[in-house]
């Protein structure tokens, strides 16, 4: 279930960052502090954007940062940072995001069930409204508790 991954300490609202790199670091640091990933993982989330562009904007305005699977990830994990104001990928056609997930995987497919559940919550329009409009944490957690 998504609620098992997006626990209280892994969801932060009202986040203020200026650049997409800071956005990725912020969401990544939530996982670092929870001891789920190490620093190198956060660097790899940024490198993949530098290499390919922000293709991980899964739903308009919703970014799904993820890095190389493997040794830098201690456990499959997910965090969510909801931004106070939009963040732009200046070097990439100024694409806008209003929130960012950070996702760590230990290998290529053990996280399939988590992604199935993530897709369900990302198809919930109310949830997308909330996380793209910096809704209160309580309301967001209440929604997450259903998935």
């Amino acid at each position: 279930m998504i609620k098992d991954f997006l626990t209280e300490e892994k969801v932060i609202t009202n986040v203020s960052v200026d650049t997409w790199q800071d956005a990725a670091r912020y969401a990544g640091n939530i996982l670092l502090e929870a001891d789920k990933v190490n620093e190198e993982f956060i660097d790899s989330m940024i490198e993949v954007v530098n290499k390919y562009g922000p293709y991980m904007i899964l739903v308009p305005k919703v970014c799904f940062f993820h890095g190389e699977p493997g040794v830098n990830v201690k456990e499959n994990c997910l965090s969510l940072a909801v931004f106070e104001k939009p963040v732009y990928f200046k070097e990439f056609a100024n694409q806008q995001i209003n929130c960012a997930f950070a996702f760590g995987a230990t290998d290529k497919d053990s996280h399939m069930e988590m992604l199935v559940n993530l897709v369900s919550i990302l198809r919930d329009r109310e949830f997308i409204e909330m996380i793209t409009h910096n809704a209160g944490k309580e309301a967001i957690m209440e929604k997450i508790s259903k998935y």
Partner: protein
Amino acid sequence: MLKIITVCGLGVGSSLIMKMTVDSAMNQLGVKCNIEHWDMGTVKGKPCDFIVTTEEFRKNFADQDNVVYLENMVDASEAKNKLEQYLKEKGII
């Protein structure tokens, strides 16, 4: 059976998510298919009928006409419309 490959940068997140979305869209269209997910680094040369990826990778597939691009990777109705159009264009349905 049609073989489809979904592609993203690392082959662990977005390509898997697109695989699920394409799977439900193809089910709705009633077309049987086998879907694999790969990363940009290893996808070149893999045999398939067509590729599904995101708009961001359009530049990487500029020389190919068998690619469908999604804007919202979880939206099965967008995927269904785009896949239906593609399959009709190619005379598959």
